[in-house]
């Protein structure tokens, strides 16, 4: 769960399977309310924030190009930012 205070309070829930082969973080992004339901956690945020559907323009993300192990390249090579 990530909560930001500026420019206005907003939050996002992310739940990634602990398995290999997951490249696109968008598949795992959700509202905090959904995350609470799936995970059993309670993050105790204001309801209006917890139920806010994340606007991906406000949560710029990176997608993994190819899963790598060993010596890892720079972040921008491994998972460049996705620009809308």
């Amino acid at each position: 769960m990530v909560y930001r205070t500026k420019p206005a309070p907003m939050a996002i829930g992310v739940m990634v399977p602990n398995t290999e082969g997951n490249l696109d973080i968008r598949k795992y992004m959700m509202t905090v309310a959904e995350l609470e339901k799936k995970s059993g956690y309670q993050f105790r945020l204001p309801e209006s924030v917890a139920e806010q559907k994340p606007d991906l323009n406000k949560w710029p993300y990176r997608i993994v190009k190819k899963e790598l192990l060993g010596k890892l390249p720079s972040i921008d090579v491994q998972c460049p930012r996705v620009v809308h």
Partner: protein
Amino acid sequence: MKKLVALLLGVLLSIQAVSAEHYLELRSNANAYVDSDRNSDVAARLKYKGGSEPQLLKLVTLASENGYYRVEIPGSSSKIGWVYKSFVRGYDNAGRQPASSARAPAGSVTSYGTCKEVFVGGKAPVAPDEVTPLCEEEDGVVFFASGYSKRDNHGYWSAYRLDEEKIAEMTENPRDRPKMQFRQNPKLNDGQYVQPRHVSYTGTDWDRGHLAPNGAMAWDEDAQKRSFSISNIAPQKPGMNRNIWRCFEQSIREWAADSGNTYVVVGTSHGDNFQRTRSQWGENQCPIALSRHGLPHEACTDGNRRDGAQH
């Protein structure tokens, strides 16, 4: 005569109050601003030198303002600046104050104490299972909080707060990852519970996955080191930890750059069917539970292997 004694005592007390000097110890590179606001002009750039000699900043006023302390700029008694709280520690004239981890009696942690500042509205997340609350701080400077599962033998969740000051420090003065192994957490020592060790993960095909990441603690050397606590990790699949998770952690830091305060909770969730690690568990070691989501999840309560554990 009584009046004279009282007067003398009053004079002595007032002299002591005026002459008492208070210092902070600089523990990171830090900008000293003209005002208590990071958007104001920089009065001086203070460089942290490390080493055993403390770098002291003389406090001008005891109270902080917006999280900033008003100090004299070293080398110039007339120049004043404001330094952010996360980059300094309290200092008394008797010497450096001991780290809180050393002060805290083993096994005595019952609440999150000053770590409430890493939670939205001061409210700690509630996990689906029982956790031991841990506050990782030093001299009032909070690094992160954790909920540790003695059942599952790993950090259940950790929470931290990033702000624009910390992000600026990490961007302007990037720190290398410390070359160190994960350490057992002294706060979990209660005479009964046996913590996993760094080697507990060796040969398991699982990474020691940070919950509060080293990269988000790189605004302070001690915070980074504290993140290498066994209570702040859970087993992660390497392909997950080093790829999608690493990239996601980077995204969080990027979000935090212009977001005021950013609060993060990183947790584990394993559902009903979870595995246990297969490793060379030593005497009095319990296997670590692996979770299916978020980050992986394992536990020991009495130093004996739990029933059903795989080895």
